């Protein structure tokens, strides 16, 4: 685009390359299309604001996950007042799950929607095969705590999937 600096072009190219992260986090954390748009906007904005501090010490995707998850967990909404408790149970109806997914993946997204926000972050990073140390660093927990919590969350997730089948 005309008027774009080299750093802007580089950033846009990287975001385009890793858009899947935005969509996954949107599907896991947002309850509606409007929520997803808001969250996506906030994540890109935070990524852009933090980009000058990104030194390339980790992979871009790792850093992007960190910023995106931090944004999703700390993002509060005015309109969410009445939805926080009631929609958790019925979140499945509109978490952006399309018919393009396999049955297993649909079920997984629906089950994840029933976890709390922190549990979703832990399971999402586990699904992405991130090491415990990285999960702990991202969330601010100890490695041991992550390990213990992950066992509990996986059991909870398995139980949810079992009841949904």
């Amino acid at each position, binding site marked *: 685009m005309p008027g*774009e600096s080299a750093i802007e072009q580089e950033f846009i190219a990287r975001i385009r390359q890793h858009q899947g992260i935005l969509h*996954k986090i949107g599907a896991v954390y947002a309850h509606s299309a409007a929520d997803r748009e808001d969250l*996506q906007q906030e994540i890109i904005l*935070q990524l852009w604001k933090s980009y000058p501090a990104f030194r390339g010490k980790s992979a871009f995707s790792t850093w992007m996950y*960190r910023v995106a998850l931090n944004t999703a967990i*700390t993002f509060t909404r005015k309109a969410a007042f009445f939805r926080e408790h009631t929609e958790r149970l019925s979140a499945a109806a509109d978490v952006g799950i*399309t018919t393009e997914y396999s049955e297993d993946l649909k079920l997984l997204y629906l089950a994840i929607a029933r976890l709390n926000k922190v*549990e979703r972050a832990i399971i999402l990073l586990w699904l992405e095969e991130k090491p415990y140390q990285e999960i702990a660093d991202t969330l*601010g927990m100890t490695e041991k705590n992550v390990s213990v919590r992950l066992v509990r969350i996986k059991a909870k997730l398995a139980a949810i999937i079992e009841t949904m089948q």
Partner: protein
Amino acid sequence: MIDLEKYKTAWQLESPPTGRPLTDREIHALMRATSKHILVRFRRGLVFDLIFKAVLLVLAVVLAFRMPFTPGRPAFYLIAAALLIGGMGWQLRTLRRIPRQDPGALSTLDLLLQCIAFYYRYYYRVIPVMAGSGAFFFLIGSLYYLYFKYGDIPPAGWDDLLVLGIGLALSFVLSTVAQVWQGSFHIRQLEERVREMEEHSLSARSLETQRTQMIRNTVLTGIALIIGLLLFLYLIYQQM
């Protein structure tokens, strides 16, 4: 027991097709969008109120020079100006305390605790100061009305003062309550995240302590401001 590995494989094998891919132009536009983060929203509100107070200050100064001179009036205008300038100073101090969070450098827990600490230490204390703008708007607006209608502040009785006092108190209380409610609503969401992260831990318990201190501070600040407002009204009455 369900084997989650099957689902993990599905997660990793399938690309996330949800949503239409963003174009370069859309990404570019989102990079310049307005943030909806609570700290950014609060910073915007604070700056807006600072500008509003500055406008009120100018209006008060203009009125001071246009109203006929009486011996007690300079003191009244000086107190009004001092309150507005003092409030602006407090707000500027709060503005500097708003943490500039980098979600790429801090952990989720650190971001949450930093945000919550800011709310309890600074946000709730500045709310009555911000709410004072509404009361000043009502007061200066009333004085302008009187000036344009009568060219001066006509002699007033207790009933006039009562109406003015109720108007001032209502605008102050309503604004304070609305902002406290809004802040509490956001903070509750963040506190919920901390509890989810650190069940029964020190951080989660310290939230309760911070909440108690916040309530005490807000009540004390509110009482001090109401006493100040009453004294201010008494001063107005003396001028009328």
